[in-house]
C-alpha cells in the first residue's frame, strides 16, 4: 500500500504539471473606437423605449468603465409596408438624454411612445459626424398561455423544491422568433433597463412550429420570489444578433473560430430591436 501510494503521488505530480497558463506578451494591434448602440422599442411599456450610446475601446485599454456618448442625436422613425416598400411617417420622435445617467436616450417623458404591432421602426443615431441606422419590425404578440409552479419533494435535500413552468402556443406559420426573459423583483414589473432581466432563451420556431411549447426551470427556484416573465416576439435580424451574441460568449480557446456579433446597424455596433412583449407575473409560494 505504501509503495502504491508513492507511485500514485509521483505519477499525479507529473500529471498536475500538465496544462498550465502563463502571461503572453505581444505588440497590441491598432484599433479605433466605434459607436455602439443598444436600443429597444416595445408596444407594452413606454418606459422601456430607449437607446444606450457608448463607444468601444481597444481591447487592452486600461479603462474599464462604460464610455458613454453624451452628444448623440437619436431619432426614431415609424413606418408601414405598402406595396413592398416601407413608407415612413413624416413625424419622427427625437430621443432626449435621460437625466442623471450618461449615454441613455429616450423619448421625451412629455410624449410617451408605444410601438405598434406590424409597424417598422428606424433608429438613426448621429454622433461626431457619423450616422448609424437600423430598421426593426414589430411582430405580433404571442401570449403566454399559462404559468405555474411544480413543487417536487427532493429526498436528498429533505425539502420541497419549486420549479417554474410556462407555456405558449406558436402560430402555425414558420419564421417566428422569440426571446424569453424574466425579471425577479417584487418592486417593479419591469427592469429599468433590459440588461437587468435574465435572458433565458432566444429561439426560432423550427422545432415547435404551430405547437404549444412548455418551458421549465432546470434548477429549483426560490420560494417567495416574484417572477415577471416576458415572452418577447422579435424579428429575424434581432434573432440573428442574439444568436451571434450568445455564440460570441464562447470566443477564445483552440477549438473556436472568433465570432463578431452580427450587429443590426450599418455604421455602428449593437442592436436596435422592436419587441412585442407578452407578460405574466407569478409569486412562488410554498405549498
Amino acid at each position, binding site marked *: 500500500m505504501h509503495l502504491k501510494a508513492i507511485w500514485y503521488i509521483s505519477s499525479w505530480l507529473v500529471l498536475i504539471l*500538465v496544462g498550465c497558463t502563463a502571461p503572453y506578451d505581444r505588440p497590441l494591434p*491598432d*484599433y479605433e473606437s466605434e459607436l455602439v448602440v443598444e436600443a429597444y422599442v416595445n408596444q407594452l411599456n413606454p418606459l422601456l423605449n430607449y437607446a*444606450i450610446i457608448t463607444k468601444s475601446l481597444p*481591447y487592452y485599454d486600461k479603462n474599464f468603465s462604460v464610455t458613454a456618448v453624451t452628444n448623440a442625436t437619436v431619432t426614431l422613425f415609424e413606418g408601414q409596408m405598402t406595396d413592398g416598400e416601407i413608407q415612413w411617417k413624416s413625424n419622427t420622435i427625437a430621443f432626449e438624454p435621460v437625466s442623471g445617467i450618461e449615454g441613455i436616450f429616450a423619448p421625451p417623458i412629455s410624449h410617451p411612445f408605444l410601438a405598434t404591432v406590424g409597424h417598422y421602426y428606424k433608429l438613426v443615431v448621429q454622433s461626431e459626424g457619423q450616422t448609424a441606422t437600423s430598421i426593426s419590425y414589430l411582430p405580433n404578440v404571442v401570449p403566454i398561455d399559462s404559468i405555474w409552479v411544480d413543487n417536487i419533494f427532493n429526498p436528498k*435535500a429533505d425539502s420541497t423544491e419549486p420549479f417554474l413552468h410556462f407555456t405558449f402556443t406558436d402560430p402555425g406559420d*414558420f419564421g417566428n422568433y422569440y426571446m424569453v426573459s424574466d425579471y425577479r423583483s417584487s418592486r417593479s414589473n419591469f427592469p429599468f433597463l433590459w440588461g437587468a432581466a435574465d*435572458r433565458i432563451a432566444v429561439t426560432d420556431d423550427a*422545432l415547435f412550429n404551430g405547437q404549444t411549447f412548455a418551458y421549465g426551470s432546470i434548477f429549483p427556484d426560490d420560494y417567495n420570489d416574484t417572477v415577471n416573465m416576458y415572452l418577447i416576439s422579435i424579428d429575424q435580424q434581432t434573432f440573428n444578433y442574439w444568436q451571434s451574441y450568445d455564440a460570441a460568449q464562447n*470566443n477564445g480557446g483552440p477549438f473556436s473560430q472568433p465570432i463578431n456579433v452580427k450587429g443590426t446597424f450599418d455604421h455602428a455596433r449593437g442592436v436596435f430591436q422592436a419587441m412585442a412583449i407578452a407578460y405574466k407575473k407569478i409569486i412562488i409560494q410554498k405549498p
Partner: protein
Amino acid sequence: MKYNGALLFFVFNLLLAHDAFAQKKVSISGYVKDASTGEDLVGANIYVEELKTGVATNVYGFFSLQLLPGTYHLQITFLGYNTIEETLELKVNTTRTFQMQLADIQTDEVVITAERSDKNVQSTEMSKIEIQVEQLREIPVLFGETDIIKTIQLLPGIQSTGDGNSGFYVRGGGPDQNLILLDEAVVYNASHLFGFFSVFNADAIKNVSILKGGMPANYGGRLSSVLNIQLNDGNSKELHGKGGVGIISSRLYLEGPLKKDKSSFMIAGRRTYADVLAQPFLNDRVRGNRYYFYDLNAKVNYILNPNNRLYLSGYFGRDVFSFKDNTSKSLNPPTFNSDWGNSTVTLRWNHLFSDRLFSNNSFIYNDYKFTFGGGISQLNFKFHSAIKDLGVKSDFDYFLSNKVKLKFGGLATHHTFNPGAASVGLSDQEIKLTSQNRLAIELAAYLSSEVEVSDRLNITMGLRYSAFDAIGPYKEAVYDAITGAPTFDTLRYSKWQSMHWYHAWEPRLAFRYLTSPNSSIKGSLTKNAQYLHLASISGGTLPTDLWLPSSKYIKPQIAYQAALGYFRNLRDNKYESSVEVFYKPLKNQIDFMPGTNLFLADEIDRNVLIGKGLAYGLELFIKKVKGKLTGWIGYTLSKTTRTNPPLNNGNPYFPRYDRRHDVSVLATYHLNNKWKFSAVWVFATGIAYTPTVGRYFGNIGIEGINAQNIMPFFDVITIYPNEYNTARLKPYERFDISVIYKPEPKKEKWWNGEWNLSVFNAFNRKNPYFIYNDTDVEAGVNERKMVYFPILPSVSYNFKF
C-alpha cells in the same frame, strides 16, 4: 477526347511490354519472412547481381522476378537482418520463401534501413517515408506512450498545430485529407484523449509508411496523404509476448502459432489506469468520476495452401469519460457520460493466380461513433453521431516483366453517415431531434504500371477512376431557386435511388531519372478527388466533428500536385538526402462562417462555404541510416492559403496550420547493447490566429432604487478585425530526450526488459497552444497563453518474452 492520356498510357505499356514476350523466361517468386516469427517482410529486396536489377516485396511480402533460364546470384536484404546470399540455378518457374535471420549486433557494417541501401535514389516513389517500428520505440515519448502520429509529425512536409493534437497536416492539406489505413480499413478519428495520443498501439504494428505526394493510382479518396499501417500477422513459430508499463497506461501483446507455420494469431491490448489508481484518493464529491481509454488489436491468419492465405484482423478502441457530483443535494445530481472510438474489421484473402499475378481481396468494415449523455436537475440529454463503412476491395500485382509491373484493382464502399440524433428532456417535456442518415456508394477502379524505360529512366503511370453516388432513402428540403428561402416542400428519394452522382478521372504520373549511381531526379504529377468532408469549425480534429458526404451543395474536393525532387546518397549510402519542391492547388475546400451551428443541423450543407486553396513549399531532408549515430534533419519552407469569398473579405487567408518554417532534428545514439540515447528538437513558426482588437459593453442593465444607488450589469463583447488569422502565435520549440537502458540479456532467461526514461520538452519551453484573455474589472484585460506540456519526465518499462 478528353482522356487521350488513358489511351496513350495503354499503348505505352504495350510497347514496353515487348520485353516480356521477347524470350521465354521463367520466374522466381515467393515471400520473404522473418525466420524466427514467420512474419512477412514488407519492402525486403531481392537483388540479382548478374543483371544489376531487383525487386522489393510488396505490402503483403510477395515478390516475383522474370529471368532467362540460368544461374543467378541473389542477395536478399532487409532492416537489421543478416543478408541472404544464394546461388540459384533457374530452369523452370520456381517458388521460394526466404527466411531472414535478425542481425545480433548493429554495427557500422549492418544496413539498418528497411530498403535496399540506395532505394532512396533508385525507386520511382517520391514523397514517401517508411518508419521502422523499432525506430519508433527509441524516440522520446510522452507519458511513455510510443506514438506513430507524433513521430510522423517530425517529417518534412507534415505539420501539427501543437502538443495537444494528434491531427496532422500534409503539404497544406486539412486534417480530413489524410487517408489513415489500419490493415486497409479507414480510421476516421485517429486520436485518444482529445488528440493527445494516437489510437495505434506500436506493439501490434509491423509496418508504417506515409505518402505525402506522388500518390500511386491504387490509393485515393483523400487529397493529401496516405498513412498506411499494417498490423503484425503473429508469430507462426512459437508463443511470444511483449508489453510495457508506463505512467498512465500499460500494454500487453501476445502472438503465437495456432498451427505451426500454417496459422498464427496476435492480440494486443492497452488501457490507461489513472482513473482506477486515483479512486482511493479522491474525495467523496468526485469519487466515481473517470476518464480512460483502451484499445484492442487482434489478428489471425491461415495459410490454406501456397497460393491462398486468409487474414482476419480488427481494432476496437474507446475513450470513456464520466462525471457525477456525488455530494450534490440536487434531485438529479449533475452527470455527464461520453464515449467515442473506432472499430475496424478486415477480412483478407491473398491469392496467387500464378507466379506473376498476385491478388489481395478484402472485405472491410469500419465505424466511428460518438455519444454523450447526462443530466442536471430537471434536464436530461442524449446525443450520438456515427459514420459506418462497408466495403470490398481487390488489388492485383502483375509482374509482367522485370521492366514492367502492373497494378490494377477496384473498390466499392457503402457509407452510412449519421450526423446526429439527440433527445432533450426537461421535466414533463421531451424533444427528440434526429438528423436523417445519409447514404452513399463510393467506387473506384485503377490501373498503374511501373516501367523501366532505360537504365536511368523509370516511369510510373496510373489512372484512377472514382465515383460517388449519394443515395436514398432521403428527404431533401426544397428551397426557392431565386430567393433561397425554404419552401417547406421535400423531395423524397427511395432506397438506393441516386440523388447526386459525382465522378473523376485521376491521372497519376511519376518518374525517376538517375543522374549518377548515387543521385537521381524525381518528379510527380497527380490529381486526387475526395468525396468525404469533415465538418469542423475547430481547424483541428475533435471527437465531435462530423463527416459529411458530397451532396447537392458540397462538391467533391479536388487537388492537383506537382512535385520535383533531387535525391542523393552520400558516403556509401550512409547518408540519404533529398530536396523536394511541391505546388498544390486545391478546389472545393469547405469552411464555415464563424458561429455556424453544426449540431444536428440537417441542412449543414447549405451553410458550407466552398473555396479554394493553394500550398507550395520546399522540403529538405537528410537522414543518416548507418552507424551508431542515426537520425534525420528535416526542414520545410511552405505557404498555405485558403480563399473563401465570405471570409476575410474574399482575400486569401492563412489556415491555422500554416507554418512558414518547420525544422525537426532526430538523433539516436547506440552506445552499446545496453544504452541508447535519443533526442528530438523541433522548431516551427507559430500557428495563425485572429487577435482581438476591441471590446464594448452589451446587454447593459442597471438595477437600483435611485441614481445614487445603482448596480450596472453588462457583458464584455470582443471585436475581431474583419481580416482572418492575421496574427501568429510565438514560434513552437521543443527539445525531448530519452535514454533506453537494456540490461544484458541472459540466454537462459526467458524474459528481457528495458527501461525508457524520457523527458518531453526538456527545456521547459512554454509553447502556446492558444491564447485567451483574462478579464478583470480591477486588473484590466491581460492576454494569457495556454500551455499543455511544460517539462514532462516519464519512465516506462518494456518487456519481451
